[in-house]
């Protein structure tokens, strides 16, 4: 909404919540975020370079609208507390004077000619374009497990002390399962975490794939035999008994089931996106979170649903290039805040005739721009191999800084011009490194740049290698005033 307003695109913004930060009035369960905001970085909060270290603030265009989380945190942790996160969002809304219609619940959707009609608790809204940013917030449990409805969901946990001396079975071994296990370690007698596949840890995948370090304690407890058991097994049934529950599991390496007698069963089986009746219009959804399938520019992919866009954490449904199988960070603030800017620009340009501002470059400016972006560009750091900084190279238009865009859009020729793009890349085992793509006559070349232990990608070696990669396409004659 902020970016559309800045671009002068007329719109209405509706929220079912009564105030900003509705989700953070409830989650996370144990009151502290997984994402950090580092207070001391050598950069002032409010600068673009600071955003590399700040995963939680929304990102505006002015310094007063950036890095706000640093100012609302009390300094006891670099993971903000739930109330601090809520306050950061309230402050952003106050400072930017965003005008939401709060307490307005979207109830159903229909299509009439080219317009979508949203029926809400405050009446109907009609528009040719709709952006849904409704999160992934509806508790979900796999219906195929008999008895699962008797389990408590992640969001229904009681006070921690009520689990004292209890045997607890947690279905699900992702962050939410481990978050609960971490919180109950001082209380529970035994905790079993189970799901079919093995637990991955983010420190091993070098990405946000896997359980984050903050929640790894149950894993160590399991390894050192403290009372936590981590099972790779399918859950076949949850049955209530006189003394609690029997949970039947089956490992893929065993030909028989096991019964676990426990006091409590908790389903940490995830959430889905509450997209109501959009399926009926033709929005395709996939995966456990029922994410909408989206194009590289976050539009619903079915022809019948053109004009339906998505923003916020649902952007996970736009996979991008998925290099090395590593997903984007679109599920978190530090990722989707940049998607939102690109999406607003795309909407403004494509549907409202407001051209994307580009900047002419001299040939000598291109390499320093790419080096600086690789070292500090927050979009590249937070959305690796997903968002890229692009320079167009065209005999007629010369060299132009095209700003940030999805890498897939650039590679697949969505831009309509040749050029070069810089990204940061993780491959799941090495430290991250920059990668340069040069697109010429519809084909592209890739150039991997060296890893640096101090993440300084502005060395002479990086400069020399980028120069060599660009030499076939970069010439002084392309410079424009």
């Amino acid at each position, binding site marked *: 909404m902020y970016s559309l307003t800045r671009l002068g695109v007329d719109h209405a913004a509706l929220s079912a919540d009564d105030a900003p930060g509705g989700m953070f009035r409830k989650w996370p369960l144990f009151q502290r975020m997984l994402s950090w905001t580092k207070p001391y970085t050598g950069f002032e909060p409010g600068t673009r370079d600071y955003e590399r270290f700040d995963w939680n603030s929304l990102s505006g265009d002015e310094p007063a609208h950036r890095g706000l989380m640093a100012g609302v945190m009390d300094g006891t942790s670099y993971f903000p507390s739930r109330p601090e996160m809520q306050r950061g969002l309230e402050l952003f809304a106050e400072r930017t004077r965003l005008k939401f219609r709060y307490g307005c619940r979207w109830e159903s959707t229909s299509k009439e000619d080219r317009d979508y009609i949203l029926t809400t608790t405050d009446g109907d809204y009609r528009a040719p374009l709709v952006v849904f940013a409704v999160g992934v917030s509806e508790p979900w449990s796999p219906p*195929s497990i008999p008895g699962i409805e008797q389990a408590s969901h992640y969001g229904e946990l009681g006070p921690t002390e009520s689990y004292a001396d209890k045997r607890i079975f947690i279905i699900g071994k992702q962050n939410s399962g481990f978050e609960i296990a971490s919180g109950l370690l001082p209380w529970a007698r035994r905790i079993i975490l189970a799901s079919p596949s093995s637990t991955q840890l983010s420190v091993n995948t070098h990405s946000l794939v896997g359980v984050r370090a903050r929640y790894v304690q149950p894993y160590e407890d399991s390894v050192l035999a403290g009372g936590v058991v981590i099972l790779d097994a399918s859950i076949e049934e949850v049955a209530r008994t006189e003394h609690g529950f029997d949970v039947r599991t089956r490992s893929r390496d065993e030909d028989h089931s096991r019964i676990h007698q426990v006091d409590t069963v908790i389903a940490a089986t995830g959430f889905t996106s509450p997209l109501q009746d959009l399926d009926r219009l033709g929005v*395709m959804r996939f995966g456990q979170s029922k994410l909408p399938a989206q194009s590289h520019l976050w539009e619903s992919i079915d022809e019948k649903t053109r004009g339906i866009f998505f923003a916020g954490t649902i952007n996970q449904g736009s996979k991008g290039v998925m290099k090395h*199988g590593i997903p984007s960070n679109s599920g978190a603030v530090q990722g989707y805040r940049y998607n939102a800017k690109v999406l607003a620009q795309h909407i403004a340009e494509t549907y409202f005739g407001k051209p994307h501002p580009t900047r002419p470059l001299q040939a000598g400016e291109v390499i320093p721009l790419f080096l600086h972006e690789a070292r500090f560009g927050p979009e590249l750091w937070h959305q690796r191999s997903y968002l890229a900084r692009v320079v167009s190279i065209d005999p007629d238009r010369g060299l132009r800084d095209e700003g940030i865009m999805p890498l897939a859009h650039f590679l697949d020729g969505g831009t309509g011009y040749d050029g070069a793009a810089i990204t940061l890349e993780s491959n799941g085992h090495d430290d991250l490194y920059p990668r340069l793509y040069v697109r010429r006559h519809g084909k592209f070349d890739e150039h991997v740049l060296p890893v640096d232990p101090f993440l300084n990608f502005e060395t002479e070696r990086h400069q020399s290698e980028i120069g060599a990669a660009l030499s076939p396409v970069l010439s002084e004659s392309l410079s424009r005033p």
Partner: protein
Amino acid sequence: MAVEELADAIAGFTLFADLSTPQREHVVDVFTEQWFADGEKVLRQGLSGSGLYIVIDGSAAIRIDGVDRATLRAGDFFGEISCLLSEPPTADIVAIGPLRCLVLALSQVEGFLKSNPLVMYRLLQGEARKVRTTTKWLS
């Protein structure tokens, strides 16, 4: 599609024909589900860092230097050569209509195949058929 539905969907695929239900559930838990729009590229010729893909629904073109050479359908897999050799794909794979796939990241392919020898054997059979077809075509 839920894990259990996907596990049922792949039961008829040659690649997973020898697996039990828990083993198939493990497969779909390890793989990621992805959708592609009509005309969207799934793999890009020459782009490093791919993965192993299995078509669940829909079809896709194998496109080399802009020329369509063959069509992939439900149950077919692709990207395996790129993964096994750690080299970029030699073709674009382009969705024909909406396409739904299961994807395994490059870094997980070796571990997955070693821990699922029955899948590895079926995959080898698939490669053998491809070699046979190519040999016939060349002769």
